[in-house]
């Protein structure tokens, strides 16, 4: 049935109303559902360690610290300086370990190798290890994510 002066048939009108209603409902239901299922994960902006804990590290050794839910590795270089890495292989996310005697980082999952500066030198890893930015303020060793002021 089409009324005079109407652009729609009654069926089109009803379908439009119902469809629009369902669409709006679906969207308003989907939004909280997605928010809930994909909660935001916050990587920490910075982690603060007491510097005294790291001062007496031997040269060419590493120390574990928690970087959010991932492990971080603080490495004391041969010149006494420090470097910090996210100790997670850039290939498929396994935790790496530092082999002091070989001066290499090693990921046991797929035989991934990095040299002591974190550059990938063997196996499947496509990128170097992620570095974190270090600064010492008073008693504290402050470890920051790149790009955080």
């Amino acid at each position, binding site marked *: 049935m089409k009324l005079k002066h109407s652009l729609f048939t009654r069926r089109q009108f009803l379908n439009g109303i119902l469809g629009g209603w369902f669409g709006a409902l679906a969207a308003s239901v989907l939004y909280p559902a997605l928010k809930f*299922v*994909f*909660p935001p*994960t916050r*990587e920490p902006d910075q982690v603060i360690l007491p510097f005294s804990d790291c001062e007496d590290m031997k040269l060419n050794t590493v120390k*574990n610290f*928690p970087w*959010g*839910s*991932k*492990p971080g590795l603080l490495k004391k270089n041969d010149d006494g300086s420090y470097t910090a890495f996210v*100790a997670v*292989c850039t*290939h*498929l*996310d*396994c*935790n*790496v*370990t530092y082999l002091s005697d070989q001066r290499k980082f090693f*990921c*046991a*999952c*797929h*035989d991934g190798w990095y040299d002591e500066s974190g550059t*990938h030198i063997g*196996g*499947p*890893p*496509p990128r170097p290890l992620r570095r974190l930015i270090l600064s010492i303020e008073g008693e504290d060793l402050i470890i920051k994510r790149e790009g955080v002021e």
Partner: protein
Amino acid sequence: MSSKGQKMGLRSWLDDRLGVSAVFGFLRDKKIPQHRHSVWYYTGSAILLFFAIQMITGFMLVFYYNPTLEGANTSVARIMTEIPLGWIIRSVHSWSASFMIAFVFIHLLSIWITKAYRKPRELTWISGVFLLLISLAFGFTGYLLPWDDLSLSATKVGTDIPRSIPVVGVWVTRLLRGGDDVTGDTLTRFFGFHVSILPLFLLTILAVHIYLVQKQGMSVPVSDEKKGKKLKELPFWPNFVYREMVVWLILTGILFSVAIFFPPSLEKAADLMAPAPEGLRPEWYFLFLFQMLKIFPSKILFINGDTIAVLLILLGIIAFFFLPLIDSKPAEKKGKIITAAAYLFIVFAVAMSLWSLLS
């Protein structure tokens, strides 16, 4: 008269309401063709057997298992040591999973090679591939639950793989992990998939699959069909069912023997901060994919090697999925390339698995 009459009365009373006489009549008249490939017909019911065992032992394990960072490993240890006969239940659940997946592979390969997926059984095949994927998802989520070093690393690797898929990949990883990293939330979520979400999917698709198999009857292999002569047939009831029961008894016996003599071990609880252990290996049915990822070069031209590997695997799954549309010849035609591809796949998978095991 009286007892038999009453029995008939109850049957017709039930049938008036349920309308199941059609089903019983169908099963009474159902015939199973007999030929030299008939043995593969038993793989389907073997899968059902192992799945039933999985359901029952799974319901039981759920009574004591805690899907939390603190409780997972401890509660499995408790099941193994404190709960009466808990180690057997866990061992049967673990072994039955392997048996089930092995039979799913055999079932699909036999159908691939005998070309039973051809018209009109395209949808039966596709639902079967769905069931394979759900079974693998069961295996993958279940592997994490004891929460030891090996299972944690395997899960980190497994859930990171989708990330290589452009655009959607990172969201798949986040959906699986409940965040950017594998944490206690991942464990809780995997448990939810394993005990609550996947069972419903599997049962629904299984119902469709079994309906389709019944509706279309048993397929006869190309080689036997073209001889033109009438094949011998075995009545489904009781002859075939009795034979199936014998097969079930033998398989149950093997399963329980293996489960009792080789219970799965339990390593110490996983530590999210510890380096990945050496000798990391997923369950045996993922070994060939694992090895493939391991040997892929990190860069091919300018593209990330993993991305290519993952896209190749994805392509393989899609091709497998749509096999009946790729090979859409009539049922009675031969298909040498398809047969060769099946054997090639078997050789490839076995070789890669062995390589991974021996290296």
